């Protein structure tokens, strides 16, 4: 069990390629922190700096208040799950899980006890004497997890551990990892580019882009109060709709479409040009007093919900409506937006202003 402190962590490659810049984060004991961002945003680099697999160019890393910058991987007492599992292919499942314990000079009976316990938790008992090549993707993933949990390490690091599994298995392993965490309570850093994974697993998530922190918060905070256009667009599936428009005294103008809005729901003291963010689920059909009418371009049935593509003031958007309402492409629909859920961003800085 451990807390972590990352202070102004910076990674520079080849003297001028900045991969991570001034990364500051305090991680409390037992937290499940998810780093999320598009590929190349530096999230894996930070994880590898914490693991000691990459040198820290500037800044300081503390685990349990001990500075770790110059401590080698083997002495950091961390366990890591790699993207491609990185199992030892020449060893059996048992040997894979026992390796770390052997290296740490545990007794044979203790190794046996811990490996069997982990194998029981992960359902690996029947496969202990197989080699990784004879296992399915999901089983290999479990071995990689098993190798980490037998160690009883201070910190778990997971680098996109589910990215090479198929969709169904991914959902299943996701909940297995969550229940594993609630059982072991080990401080965990989990890296993913998948915002659904980030939302469902994290106690707090860190949204990254271009090597810099965009926002740190609980999934709910990040979803409901994104700090900027990047976070708002990255978190949420399907993505948030953005309209560029201008403010008037009593409403909004998006293209040639005017939407009246009560004064209390509009940003004050902002410049006229703004970006308006609306999540697909915050639009609804309203026959009585719709805000606007729009012609449906495409319809996508997802099951309980239907996604419709249409335009508002010549700007495309996606809305999520219940499938119980039959809709055809070409049809004109009366639509409204939940006004109190609209987000407003500065068109220059892209930061949220309201």
């Amino acid at each position, binding site marked *: 069990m451990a807390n972590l402190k990352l202070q102004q962590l910076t990674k520079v490659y080849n003297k001028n390629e900045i991969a991570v810049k001034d990364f500051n984060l305090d991680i409390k004991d037992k937290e499940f922190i998810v780093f999320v961002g598009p590929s190349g945003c530096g999230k894996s680099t930070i994880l590898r700096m914490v*693991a*000691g*697999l990459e040198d820290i160019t500037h800044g300081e890393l503390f685990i349990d208040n001990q500075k770790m910058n110059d401590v*080698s*991987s*083997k*002495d*950091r007492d*961390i*366990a*890591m799950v*790699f*993207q*491609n599992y*990185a*199992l*030892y*292919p*020449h060893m059996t499942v048992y040997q894979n899980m026992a*390796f*770390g314990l052997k*290296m*740490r000079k545990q007794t044979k009976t203790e190794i046996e006890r811990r490996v069997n316990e982990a194998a029981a938790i992960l359902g690996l008992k029947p496969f202990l004497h197989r080699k990784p090549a004879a296992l399915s993707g999901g089983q290999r993933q479990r071995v990689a997890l098993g*190798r980490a949990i037998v*160690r009883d390490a201070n910190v778990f*690091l997971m680098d996109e551990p589910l990215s090479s599994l198929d969709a169904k298995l991914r959902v299943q392993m996701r909940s297995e990892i969550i229940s594993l965490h609630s059982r072991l309570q080990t401080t965990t850093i989990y890296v993913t580019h998948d915002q659904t994974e980030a939302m469902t697993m994290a106690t707090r998530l860190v949204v990254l882009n271009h090597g810099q922190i965009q926002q740190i918060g609980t999934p709910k905070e990040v979803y409901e109060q994104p700090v900027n256009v990047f976070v708002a667009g990255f978190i949420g599936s399907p993505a948030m709709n953005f309209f560029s428009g201008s403010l008037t005294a009593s409403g909004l103008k998006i293209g040639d479409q005017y939407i009246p809005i009560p004064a209390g729901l509009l940003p004050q003291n902002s410049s006229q040009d703004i970006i308006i963010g609306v999540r697909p689920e915050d639009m609804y059909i309203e026959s009585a007093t719709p805000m606007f009418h729009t012609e449906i371009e495409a319809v996508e049935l997802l099951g309980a919900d239907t996604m419709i593509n249409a335009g508002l003031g010549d700007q495309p958007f996606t809305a999520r409506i219940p499938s119980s309402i039959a809709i055809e492409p070409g049809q004109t629909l009366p639509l409204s937006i939940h006004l109190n859920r609209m987000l407003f961003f500065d068109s220059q800085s892209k930061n949220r202003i309201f």
Partner: protein
Amino acid sequence: MDSLLNSIFSEAFLSPIWVSLKIAIIAGIIVILIGTVAARFFARKQFRGKAVIETLLMLPMVLPPTVVGFFLIVIFGKNSWAGQAITWLFDRPIIFTWWAAVIAAIVVAFPLMYQSAKSGFLAMDRDIENAARVDGASEWKIFFFISIPLASKALISGSILSFARALGEFGATLMFAGNIPGETQTLPIAIYIAIDSGNMVMAWLWVIAIVTLSFLMLLAVRVKE
């Protein structure tokens, strides 16, 4: 027939074979050890001048053996500091000794081991080594328990190839170690001398011996792949 059998079991026939085998085994062991360590080092580290050093290490593979022999004489000759140091240490120069033949074999066989081992180390997923690092293994343990087993195929074929190359070494050995029967007269040199003196029976026997040996070794590499 009797005379043929007599030739096969004669000291004259067997001596170059033993000399060659001894030289190739000692040179092979040294090349396998140094080649594996050097290949792992160069496969993992990046630094200035790396390309130049690697090219120098590979050069003996393409140079004429006489050029390799020339440099060995220059480097270990009586007038060089290395040659003088050896003379001071062992009370005799190294040139025209059994050890000179070993050194010549090492130099020409090294690139084969190095190249094969390096491609083996480059081909493996480096995160497997990283996993061992996080699991608490020291760099030496990673080398022995992870890197070497995972590169074993490439290491074995490199070992066989470099051993075969050491066994077949001729030019540099002749120049640097000479032709001393029972000491530096290797199979290839013995064949050359036999043909030169018109002893075709012995030449044939030695040719058959080395072709058989080399064929079996290359076959082993093939089967391994």
